[in-house]
């Protein structure tokens, strides 16, 4: 903690740590100093001159965004001179501004509008011709309208500093200055839209949202992104029951302003024309539309029949359904159907990690550790591609705190650019390569270890032993793929473990085992697509699939039940660090039902009383006593990441127009 200094702002005494910028010191006593170019966490610009204030003993006005508070400083933010300077800066900014607010996407939430309203002159004295440049489309996502641009360089900085991409820069000079993309006339980048959302005006707009509606006409629903496991909060803009944008302008959630292309734009799958809206039943070998009651009755009857004759069930759960749904599904399988054959697509070996940690809850990292810990070792993951938020936070930590990053990867990754040491390791050699960093790691005060699917089973135990042997506090993150991959584990969608990793009395078949069992009577697949790359051995098995789309697996089903997606329901999901977050319903798709509702209807029809989901209890217990699954448990089933990139997202990604329309090859960036 740096030492405190006392100063005075508009007569109010202020005490802040030395080095605090005056613009932030003022905030602590409720004084707003208007600003455009200043943005928390980015380098300073001093470009817009909006934040000019009077400082005693300084002959000229000073920019509060570059001035560090000092002992005894006397600052005035409301004097006639300051007020006049603000008016002047706004008048300058508007000289070449097109003032097309009535049709501008930013209208209503534009910082230039707001500050002009609050601090500006009522009229302009500029009578000359404005500089005009036509609007440009830079990519499938990004548009730039130079005349609206106030050259605050926020976009340039967030792209370079925040994203580590540096796809934007300023070209030309004087009044002709404008922002330009890295490929001359187009962008080759993450398409994350960070630049668009950070733009204080409507100069950068997205294909997604432009000219769709006015901000005040939307309902804004904060929920959790449904794509990767990082758990970003995305605020969905909903108009007429349609999601027309995603952003995180209000910097809530674990992610602050961060969202990757998926969290911000990959929501168009919701309204995709191939979305299932009616249950399907196989009649004479063909799937035909039937009513919900007909479909549910059929499933209940068939399941009931198989159960009563002691038939063999297989249940495959999802990495995108909620904890409540997962809990209910395993309960349904184990108690309702009497089977232990339950699994899901596992992408990281969380079981082995818990088993190796032997109950040491403090060795599990939180998302905040990514930004705060002094060193991190990344094993076997292309973070910028696979875990965009994790990558963003580690980068921010390095930028702001000079943390040390170490990487062990198969090929080049973006983290190379700022990692302290990097090792290339062939598949299977990652752990050994990580161990070669022992000397450097030992010298760190603390460490975060992130590992992908290449470290699993015995290797996880070995890794934790290695971590323990460093003699410094170490925390771990087992990287998993999707929004609720972690919750699927926690809620017992595994053959040998019940919710909370409690051992199951009678472990069943794992995913591969179910697909291979020729005598399987029924397979129930909820939000997964196991038959994409595998065959079902039991040719005569009765297959029920709950999904959004007619996937390869659904196409094989006897009954297909249209499911609601995560943006259409409530419930909780658990991110890669084990943080439980709540979903909010943004829209509804006529005909589709949340999986939990489907389960409940089925249970009712089958005369089952499964109770209410007990996720809270499970998590409370896990927090009280971190479970320690038996070491052998991990061996049941396969751990393999789907290897998604910035522009893929499992099955969902296939139905996201924006991900398919970008120029960048999936996974091709930075290779």
């Amino acid at each position, binding site marked *: 903690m740096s030492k405190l200094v006392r100063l005075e702002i508009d007569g109010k005494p202020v005490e802040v740590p030395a080095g605090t910028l005056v613009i932030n010191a003022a905030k602590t006593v409720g004084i707003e100093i208007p600003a455009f170019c200043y943005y928390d966490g980015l380098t300073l610009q001093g470009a817009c001159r909006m934040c000019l204030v009077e400082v005693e003993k300084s002959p000229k006005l000073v920019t509060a965004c570059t001035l560090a508070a000092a002992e005894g400083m006397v600052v005035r933010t409301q004097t006639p001179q300051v007020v006049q300077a603000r008016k002047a800066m706004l008048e300058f900014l508007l000289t070449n501004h097109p003032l097309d607010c009535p049709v501008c996407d930013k209208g209503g939430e534009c910082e230039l509008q707001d500050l002009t309203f609050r601090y500006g002159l009522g009229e302009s004295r500029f009578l000359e011709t404005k500089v005009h440049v036509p609007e440009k489309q830079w990519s499938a996502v990004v548009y730039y309208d130079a005349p609206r641009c106030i050259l605050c360089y926020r976009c340039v900085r967030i792209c370079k500093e925040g994203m580590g991409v540096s796809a934007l820069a*300023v070209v030309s000079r004087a009044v002709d200055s404008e922002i330009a993309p890295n490929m001359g006339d187009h962008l080759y980048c993450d398409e994350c839209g960070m630049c668009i959302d950070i733009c204080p005006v409507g100069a950068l707009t997205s294909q997604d949202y432009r000219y769709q509606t006015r901000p005040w006409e939307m309902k804004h629903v904060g929920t959790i992104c449904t794509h990767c496991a990082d758990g970003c909060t995305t605020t969905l803009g909903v108009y007429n029951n349609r999601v027309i944008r995603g952003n995180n302008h209000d910097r809530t959630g674990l992610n602050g302003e961060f969202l990757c292309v998926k969290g911000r734009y990959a929501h168009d799958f919701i309204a995709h024309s191939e979305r299932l809206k009616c249950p399907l039943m196989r009649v004479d070998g063909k799937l035909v539309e039937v009513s919900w009651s007909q479909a549910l009755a059929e499933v209940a009857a068939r399941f009931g029949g198989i159960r009563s004759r002691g038939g063999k069930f297989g249940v495959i759960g999802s990495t995108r359904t909620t904890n409540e749904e997962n809990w209910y599904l395993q309960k349904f399988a184990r108690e309702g159907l009497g089977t232990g054959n339950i699994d899901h697509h596992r992408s990281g070996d969380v079981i082995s990690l818990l088993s190796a940690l032997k109950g040491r809850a403090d060795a599990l990292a939180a998302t905040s550790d990514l930004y705060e810990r002094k060193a991190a070792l990344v094993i076997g993951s292309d973070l910028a591609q696979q875990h965009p938020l994790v990558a963003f936070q580690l980068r921010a930590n390095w930028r702001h705190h000079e943390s040390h990053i170490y990487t062990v990867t198969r090929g080049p990754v973006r983290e190379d650019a700022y990692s302290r040491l990097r090792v290339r390791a062939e598949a299977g050699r990652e752990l050994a390569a990580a161990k070669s960093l022992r000397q450097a790691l030992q010298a760190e005060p603390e460490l975060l270890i992130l590992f992908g699917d290449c470290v699993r089973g015995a290797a996880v135990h070995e890794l934790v032993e290695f971590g323990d042997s460093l003699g410094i506090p170490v925390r771990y993150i087992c990287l998993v793929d999707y929004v609720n991959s972690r919750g699927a584990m926690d809620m017992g969608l595994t053959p040998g473990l019940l919710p909370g990793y409690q051992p199951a009395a009678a472990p069943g078949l794992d995913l591969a085992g179910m697909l291979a069992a020729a005598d399987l009577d029924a397979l129930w697949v909820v939000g997964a697509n196991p038959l994409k790359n595998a065959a079902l051995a039991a040719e005569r098995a009765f297959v029920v699939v709950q999904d959004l789309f007619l996937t390869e697996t659904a196409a094989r089903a006897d009954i297909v039940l249209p499911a609601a997606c995560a943006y259409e329901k409530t419930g909780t999901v658990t991110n890669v660090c084990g943080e439980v977050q709540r979903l909010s319903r943004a829209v509804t798709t006529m005909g589709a039902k949340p999986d939990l509702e489907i389960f409940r209807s089925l249970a009712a029809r089958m005369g089952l009383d499964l109770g209410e989901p007990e996720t809270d209890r499970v998590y409370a217990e896990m927090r009280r006593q971190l479970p320690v699954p038996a070491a052998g448990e991990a061996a049941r089933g396969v751990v393999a990441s789907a290897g998604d990139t910035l522009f893929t997202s499992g099955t969902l990604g296939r139905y996201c127009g924006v991900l398919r329309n970008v120029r960048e090859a999936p996974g091709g960036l930075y290779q």
Partner: protein
Amino acid sequence: MPYNEPSPLEVKVLTRRFGLADSASLDTYLATGGYEALKKALGMTPGEIIEEVKLSNLRGRGGAGFPAGTKWGFVPRDSARPKYVVANGDEGEPGTCKDRLLMEYDPHQLIEGMAIAGLAVGAHAGYIYVRGEFRYIIRILERAVEEARGRGYLGGNILGSGFGFEVYVQSGAGSYECGEESALLESLEGRRGVPRIRPPFPAVSGAFQSPTVLNNIETYSAVPAIIREGGAAFAALGTPRNGGTRLFCLSGHLNKPGVYELPMGFNLLRMIHEVGGGIPGGKRLKAVIPGGSSCPVLKAEECDIAMDFDSLAKAKSMLGSGGVVVMDEDTCMVQAARRIMEFYAHESCGWCVPCREGTNWLRRLLRRFHAGEGSRSDIDLIGDVARNILGRTFCPLGDAAAMPTIAFVEKFRDEFEAHLEGRPCPFEGRRREVPAP
């Protein structure tokens, strides 16, 4: 062959080799006292060198007139990082054309001055940042550096003293703003030439985040004489607090325009009439821009003035970088203001709002005004817009654009009024080509 005939009134200290055969060569330099100062300085302590420079009252010749010795004293003695000496040869100010001659005719004097600066602050490398358009000068400087290195005046162990100093020549990036010290450093490091936030100042964190002395070419070129002859002797050439001589670049309506080395404090009227040969065609003097385009114009009646930093500051103008632009009675002041604003509006780096938008606004206003399409309220608007720029920009370029504009409007309001109501410029047709010297 130098640019112009010397004047008998000159006091030749920095320019004494101008006109000598092969003046840029090391042999000529050595034959005329070259590198004597460096030898002498090698026997002095850094503190003694800085003291001598302070004693000389040498003030920066790049524009602001900051005392060079004081600036050198700001460089921390101890630094974990290497230190640098940077010479500003970007010379972009309209009206100023002296650094070019110093680099062209006496490159070794500059190199020697930089090496002495290196000795004084403990730097072992120096950069000469040369205006990009001066292609041929880069070759001259590089040849001089080669020669000096070849004979041990530069290199790892200068004259066997154990002190090492290297000089590198860097081409400028084609922008006036690159002459502003922090933008120059950005450009030197290979980035876009936009200024930096200060503090930290270059003395603490300049080139490559290291302590750096940054001076104008002429400033360094004065150093050998100061060390050779002593600071007091140099100081005595000028007026109090304004030591030595400086190169005045006389241009505009003069019979003998040119670059002349005159003592600080030389009277401006004498400069025009006795050094510059007076105004052609017997025309009357109307106004003078005393130190390059950024300096507020002086009316004829203000021109009986000593040309040093303090006297001009008292007259609310500046000595600037020594570009004296003389304008006769046929010159349209609205046109002059417009022409100057064309320059700043073109050269604004675009980084900060008031300069980027304000210079463009003023340019358009002045264009319109000069074309006779102005209204009375525009006259005040011009001043207002300029005052809204003044003191509020990220770097001093904004001030450089605003100050002369304010002065033109204040001092020549009548000429602005004469352009009103669709009237054509009253000076139209009265202007003829200035005869070539």
